[in-house]
């Protein structure tokens, strides 16, 4: 049980792929200009992570270690191609916006990193959970970053939600600031780098605070006992 909790905790916070491992920056920074783009890419990445981790952990005892990396890449590429084709079929407009970044999930280092570092050493259950948690952790950062950039950049939230949720999504768009002239920097790549930097800084501040609290508790315990 504690193992499961550790996997969940690692993926979402302690070893978050975007904030701690700083992996997969290229798609993270390139498509996080709106919440919906971020959500689309995040879900696609999560799905890839779950399927590739599961597959790799199932065949991990059959492949020779010398050729494991090419095999992982083949598996990931096959999965991404399937996801790309289905996105093209079901979310065609979103697929057009995300464009090259869907096939590029193959090269997203989070996926190969988890296959190599976790799935090739653990059972299918744990590996699937790890893939899911890493994916959710990545998606969460992507969505927060997308939200910040959309809000600062164009003053809206959930713009173009119909690309994902159909006609229902049109009513989801929230214009937070009326008559906003737009702040181009947040939409451009430098803004993404800066905001991600701030997010990492905030995470470190929270961790440092927690550590301090934990230390106080540890020191205080013997005295009370």
């Amino acid at each position, binding site marked *: 049980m504690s193992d499961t909790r550790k996997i969940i905790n690692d993926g979402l916070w302690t070893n978050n792929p975007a904030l701690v491992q700083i992996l997969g920056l290229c798609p993270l920074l390139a498509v996080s200009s709106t919440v919906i783009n971020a959500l689309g890419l995040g879900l696609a990445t999560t799905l890839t992570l779950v399927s590739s981790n599961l597959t790799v952990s199932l065949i991990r005892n059959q492949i020779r270690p010398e050729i494991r990396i090419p095999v992982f890449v083949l598996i990931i590429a096959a999965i991404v191609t399937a996801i790309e084709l289905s996105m093209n079929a079901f979310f065609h407009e979103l697929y057009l916006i995300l464009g090259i970044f869907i096939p590029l999930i193959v090269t997203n280092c989070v996926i190969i990193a988890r296959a190599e570092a976790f799935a090739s050493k653990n059972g299918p259950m744990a590996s699937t959970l790890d893939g899911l948690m890493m994916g959710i952790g990545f998606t969460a950062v992507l969505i927060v970053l997308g939200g910040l950039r959309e809000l600062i950049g164009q003053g809206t939230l959930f713009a173009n939600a119909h690309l994902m949720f159909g006609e229902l999504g049109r009513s989801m768009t929230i214009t937070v600031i009326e008559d906003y002239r737009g*702040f*181009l*920097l947040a939409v*451009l790549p430098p803004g993404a780098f*800066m905001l991600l930097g701030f997010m990492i800084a905030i995470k470190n501040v929270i961790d440092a605070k927690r550590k301090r609290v934990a230390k106080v508790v540890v020191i205080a315990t013997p005295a009370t006992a």
Partner: protein
Amino acid sequence: MEFKTPTSPHIHSGATVSRVMLLVMAATIPGIAVYVSYFGWGVVINILLALVTALACEAGILILRKRPVLPFLYDGSAVVTAVLLALALPPIAPWWIAVLGAAFAIIIAKQLYGGLGYNPFNPAMAGYVMLLVSFPIEMTRWQAPLANTEASLSFIDSWHIIFSGIQANITDAISMATPLDTLKTELRLDQSVEQIITGNPLFSNLAGLGWEWINIAFLIGGLFLIYKRIISWHIPVAVLATVAILSGVFYLIDADTFSSPMIHLLSGATMLGAFFIATDPVSATTSNPARIIYGVGIGVFIYVIRTWGGYPDAVAFSVLLMNMVAPTIDYYVKPRVFGHKQ
């Protein structure tokens, strides 16, 4: 590495950061005065706005970083950053432009890198480029020289233009492209330089109307700084010589499509950039040969971007680009240490 201090007694040269900054401020006064006489009080309001914001942000971040506040505020570096940024802004830009630019310059370009002495990029120019990239409309709507318009701008008028939300009506009447901007757009329409300049009220005999005197005033201020040994001559001379030589060569090749060295030297931010911005002791190179390389690089970028690039003026971009390579230049161009062989 070990630094051996020679034996005492030592005499302190009296050059403190705040004295340097004070002299730099004094040297900008003639430029600012000419600026006001040609473009009204907007620039002064911009300076005040940027100043207040810069000092407030500096203090706020210093408190967050648990550093002593007052010594760093008194050193005047934030003041210089604010003034240089405000001098680069259009005098009729809305108030939040100056505020946002100064806040970005101090918080992100200076303090997040570690504060005074640690910033790899010139904070004022980083703030300016952020504004230029983010708000192209506000940042390119320049005011026509007062001599060209019917309206005379009092301090109160400028105040209203900068602070009132509805400024489109007023500013359309007094706004105009800058001379460099005009040159760029008209050249794209296959006009020759001479056709553009003759009869255009934006240009005078030397360069752009008003701009030539502003540039000359900054030149005088810069010479004062060299005389006072606040800055060395290497960077400004390298920048200006490079711009002059490049524009001279191309002007001789084809005077119709390339404007004269006079226009390049006395337009836009050439003088302000060469003497006040490129010479920033923190983000520039440190040894004299490296300073020459650094200055030549800035000059080349100024000319190349102005002539073939997308923006009419290029001092900010050139300075930032050379800031980026300044550590590398310093690494390769090391002066011979006394007592060591080459």
